[in-house]
């Protein structure tokens, strides 16, 4: 027995990975899904998400979420930090691509009628994912603390604040005071790097589990 087999055997005896691996490896992807590029869109959104997590972690190492330092720290990332400009720009492009992919993915589901029984709840989880993805964009927009960031957020929170009944609370939670300032910044930062990533991870797990349990829809 060669080394590879022995390592495999060592793990298999302890974790029964053989059954697990075969069920993953042999799990068939229907031909219509494997050959139609429209079925790639969900995966592309997920790839973008993974890229966003990776680049985001690096950005978070240099970024400082206070009105006094935020702009300078982003400038520092863009000009001094090695590859900083590339990492921030990839984060920027992956974010926009993710939103586009999620929207197109949703259109595929809609026009193919893939939300019908038994997949109704996966559609509901999906719409929540769309909401979360756009909120990611909204909360990230403020962080560089440049003119556009500040004023777009001011108008955006203003609009959200004028929704009847709930608007007042949304704006209170988001802005954390009377005007966009230090309070808003730490809130947006927490939402962007803690609350939303955890929520989206849980929902993605649900989303993928449902796809796995229910199978990919398609013509039979």
């Amino acid at each position, binding site marked *: 027995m060669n080394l590879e087999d022995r390592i495999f055997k060592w793990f298999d005896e302890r974790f029964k990975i053989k059954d697990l691996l075969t069920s993953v490896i042999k799990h*068939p992807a229907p031909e219509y899904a494997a050959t139609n590029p429209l079925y790639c869109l969900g995966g592309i959104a997920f790839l*973008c998400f993974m890229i966003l997590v990776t680049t985001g972690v690096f950005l978070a190492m240099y970024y400082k979420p206070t009105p006094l330092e935020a702009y300078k720290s*982003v400038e520092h990332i863009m000009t001094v930090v090695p590859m900083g400009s590339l990492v921030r*720009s990839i984060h920027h492009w992956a974010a*926009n691509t993710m939103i586009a992919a999620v929207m197109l993915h949703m259109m595929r589901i809609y*026009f193919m009628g893939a939300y019908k029984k038994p997949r109704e709840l996966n559609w509901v989880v999906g719409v929540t994912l769309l909401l979360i993805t756009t909120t990611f964009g909204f909360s990230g927009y403020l962080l*560089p603390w440049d003119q*556009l960031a500040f004023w777009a957020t001011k108008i955006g929170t203003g609009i959200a604040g004028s*929704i009847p009944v709930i608007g007042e609370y949304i704006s209170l939670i988001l802005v954390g005071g009377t005007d966009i300032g230090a309070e808003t910044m730490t809130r947006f930062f927490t939402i962007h790097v803690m609350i939303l990533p955890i929520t989206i991870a849980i929902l993605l797990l649900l989303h993928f589990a449902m796809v796995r349990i229910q199978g990919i829809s398609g013509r039979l």
Partner: protein
Amino acid sequence: MSLIEIEKHEIEEERPVRIRGLPFFPHFLLREVVVMCLIAGSLILMASLYPAGLLKPADPFDTPTPIYPEWYFLYVFGFLKFWTWDIGPLPAKVIGVTLPMVLWYGLLFMVPFIDRNPSSDIRKRKVAVALGIIAILGILYFTYFSIVHH
């Protein structure tokens, strides 16, 4: 490309149906990896050609023009500018923010429960397809509206 024949029980089907499928590994995964490389490559290319911007530092006392939100929120801005009519006690502005956000997302959530037509054949879903196209055209129109009426 090697195909395997498999028996698969679709949840909604009583009888097992035979469908042609590719094993997840290596065939399906290989295709995924190719797509991933293409996407990752284009992201790096776009990031190098068009780096993320950074304007002047935020100044709460100097309103710049124009102010654009992210492109995927433009339709909300557009609708808000477009809708100038009060309905009864409801001021235009309240309708302008409620319709494109609360009502729109509410409708989206309800799609599987509104559309009770069991067919997923696009030719038998004329109403749903028409409504979908109207919704997309509407979003595009209001996005356009927000850009020209700045």
